[in-house]
């Protein structure tokens, strides 16, 4: 079977092409038309296409195993959005189509929530629910034909249209694949094409873990226990933020990834600059703090309590900075307040213009829809 063969080969292009062709055929069969519409075949093809596609996505973009709840929600909402989207596109009755569209919106809003955008989720539901209801009313008012009609039961170029759409999808997905870490692994290229995020999830988890350990270290009074705890800490921090280029004890950190400040070297927006600066500060503090610790503890056979206290006194500041850096990888809490701040500080002009456009659109709507008195 060529389908499975294609899946087995690991050729990203072949599998994707299979999914795309299947999807196009599915939509072709599902689209309403006087002759040749088959919902059963279409549904089967759609499911097959979805299976191939999901396996492709999982294979290429990684299986999201650890975060179980988040995964389930993601797959649930995505499946809802895409499934209802398919139903909406292939639905003969526009009224039912509108309902399917409402479900698409709900599913997408779930995805919004997963993407830490609660305000947009609420706004979209409110606006689209209103828009959908209005649209739905119009549908009821305008197209209450009893029998089949041209606009509902026919489609324009179903084959070409679905092919075009799915070709587009295939191209976008393939382009995504090319820029994803999966492609980097597949082709043994060390760098991502896509601009990296400031602090990745793994780094964030590692930073928080180190911070936790640091807070424990400051409570210890025993020299050996301290040395035991801090044995690998310095290198782990250096792995994330790098080592100062001038440092005498600069060690080559074997890593596939670059350190945070290096990744952000080319970006010039204020946030990236601040993050970069923070990373460089930590880089210096890391060297200083652990040098001080070693100097105080290793120079004497039996360091006094004073020495021990001295050796760890730089660590709380380092810990704080590490927590700050970990937070740099996430959107701020208080979503609404921060969006408001961004809108009214950085995008003030755009907000004004959007408001103006809305006003003009309102006036335009009234002007267009007014029934004109034809004097003739």
């Amino acid at each position, binding site marked *: 079977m060529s389908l499975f063969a294609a899946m087995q080969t690991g050729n990203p292009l072949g599998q994707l092409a299979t999914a795309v062709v299947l999807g196009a055929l599915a939509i072709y069969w599902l689209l309403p038309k006087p002759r040749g519409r088959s919902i059963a075949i279409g549904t089967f093809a759609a499911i097959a296409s979805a299976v191939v596609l999901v396996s492709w996505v999982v294979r290429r973009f990684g299986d*999201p195993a650890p975060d179980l709840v988040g995964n389930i929600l993601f797959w649930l909402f995505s499946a809802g959005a895409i499934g209802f989207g398919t139903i909406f*596109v292939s639905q003969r009755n526009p009224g039912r189509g509108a309902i399917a569209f409402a479900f*698409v919106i709900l599913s997408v809003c779930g995805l*919004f929530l997963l*993407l830490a955008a609660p305000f*947009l989720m609420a706004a979209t539901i409110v606006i689209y629910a209103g828009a959908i209801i209005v649209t739905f009313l119009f549908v009821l008012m305008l197209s209450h034909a009893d029998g089949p009609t041209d606009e509902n039961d*026919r489609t324009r170029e179903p084959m070409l249209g679905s092919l075009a759409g799915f070709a587009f999808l295939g191209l976008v997905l393939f382009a995504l694949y090319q820029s994803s870490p999966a492609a980097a692994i597949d082709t043994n290229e060390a760098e991502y094409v896509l601009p990296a995020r400031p602090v990745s999830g793994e780094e964030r988890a590692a930073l928080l873990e180190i911070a936790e350990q640091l807070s424990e270290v400051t409570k210890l009074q025993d020299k050996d226990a301290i040395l035991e705890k801090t044995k690998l800490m310095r290198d782990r921090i250096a792995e994330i933020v790098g080592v100062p280029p001038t440092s005498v004890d600069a060690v080559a950190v074997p890593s596939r990834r670059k350190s945070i400040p290096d990744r952000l070297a080319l970006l010039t927006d204020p946030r990236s600059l601040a993050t970069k600066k923070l990373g460089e500060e930590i880089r210096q503090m890391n060297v200083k703090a652990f040098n001080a610790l070693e100097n105080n503890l290793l120079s004497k056979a039996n360091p006094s309590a004073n020495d021990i206290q001295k050796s760890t006194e730089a660590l709380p500041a380092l810990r704080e900075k590490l927590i700050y850096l970990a937070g*740099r990888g996430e959107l701020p809490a208080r979503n609404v307040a921060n969006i408001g701040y961004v809108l009214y500080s950085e995008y003030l002009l755009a907000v004004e213009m*959007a408001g103006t456009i809305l006003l003009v659109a309102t006036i335009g709507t009234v002007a*267009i829809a007014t029934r004109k008195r034809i004097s003739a």
Partner: protein
Amino acid sequence: MISVWHYLAVAAVLFALGLIGFLTRRNLITMFLSAELMLQGVVLNLLAFSRFHANLSGQAFALFVVTVAACEAGIAMALFIVLYRRNKSLDASVWQSNREAGVPSSVDADALPTVAAEGADDPKLQPAGAKPQEPARV
């Protein structure tokens, strides 16, 4: 951990579905909703990148997209009303007079399936009993 690529893939699928709906469906309202579906795909993209970069600009852009979509909805509805008044139809293919001279208008080949009118096959009762006589008018 769900990566940004997963969201982008979902957004691409939504966009493609909306595209197909816009290209093939002939009901103006369905076409309009398909365009909205494409916009949802775009907004999903923006939000995914916003999350990925830990930057709220994406969400701000998404808000602007929603704004523009609202404008579009209003004007599109007004235009649909005007068009419906003209031809009593929501079929986008009715409007094809803007074609090259000499090109024949495109006509749908297959006939639409006929659906029996409701109540045509229902059994009917014969009227029973005698018809009452009207009183003679005097």
